[in-house]
């Protein structure tokens, strides 16, 4: 369980310490990519909890989602349509759904454990 958090912290440290500057135009893409990454991450956690986790799906979903979000934003910028809103909306909704599912699963697990404990106690 500690490995993902360690990785997250490492990544955060790296991100905070890097001194690379990207043009302001691409900062939009980055924010969408962050959203996509978070979505994938929570999706992975949910899949893991639901016992349907798959490496390929996870990894490909991670990169593909990021690329798709960035591509959508890019297209939106060039078409004059705020397509990145679609990405934000989609990822946002999925993020909430994923988190909700994770929450429910955790609650169910906790209740199950509680019941088990009670049973043991009885």
């Amino acid at each position, binding site marked *: 369980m500690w490995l*993902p958090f360690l990785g997250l912290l490492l990544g955060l*440290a790296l991100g905070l310490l890097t001194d690379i500057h990207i043009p302001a135009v691409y900062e939009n893409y980055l924010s969408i*990519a962050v959203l996509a990454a*978070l979505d994938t991450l929570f999706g992975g956690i949910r899949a893991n909890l639901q016992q349907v986790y798959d490496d390929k799906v996870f990894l490909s979903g991670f990169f593909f989602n990021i690329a798709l979000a960035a591509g959508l934003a890019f297209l939106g910028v060039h078409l004059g349509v705020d397509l990145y809103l679609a990405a934000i909306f989609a990822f946002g909704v999925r993020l909430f759904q994923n988190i909700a599912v994770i929450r429910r699963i955790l609650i169910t697990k906790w209740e199950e454990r509680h019941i088990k404990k009670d049973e043991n106690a009885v």
Partner: protein
Amino acid sequence: MKKKPLHNKKNKFTRKQFIVLIVCIATGFMIGYSYKLTKDEVKVNTSYLEQEESYREDLISQKERNKELIEELIALQTKRREYEKTFAENEEDYDHLLQEADKLRLLLGEIPAYGEGIRVILKDSEYDPNSPNPNDYIVHESHVFAVINELKISGAEAITVNGQRIKTDSFIRCNGPVITIDGKQFPAPFVIEAVGDAKALHTSLKIVGGVFDQLLNDRIVVTIEESSLIEMPSINDNDEGVS
């Protein structure tokens, strides 16, 4: 799913964990990077705003300073104008004083005088065998006095006798056939020159029963001529001549 362990199984470093780690690192990196970018942007924005604010304050203070300076300039200009005005008045006063001083110097004989004037020449008359006393027909200092006095009364500014400027403290003495003026002897004929209003001088000399008549009565040959320009030296020039 746990197909290929990357390391030994003791650490349980499975492929799944590796992928999760990579994804987590990537996500963390992106979050951290975007957080940093946003922070920088905010910082830049705030610093820019602060800079703008400080520039604006500078501008305002500069404008206020300009205003103060302009007010000062206006005040100084008004002051200068007043100075100029008073200066002009002073200059007029000064001109008056200068003219007065010139006039006084002229009367004192300290500066050379020139201008319109009159020339009176007194000559002894021809020898008259009928009168045994030569005093009856030669020019006496009293005649010269009379002429000088009359000229002064009529407003002569400067007077010379035979080129000798008459001062306030000049003395004229009869010394036989010559007269002494300030220690210098002068023979006849006596040329008395006066600077002043020629017409007035002439008229005053020729008043009926005046100096001219008296001189004629004393059988002195008198010539009066008006001159548009008479020049006479200052007393200092005369003194040089004496010494």
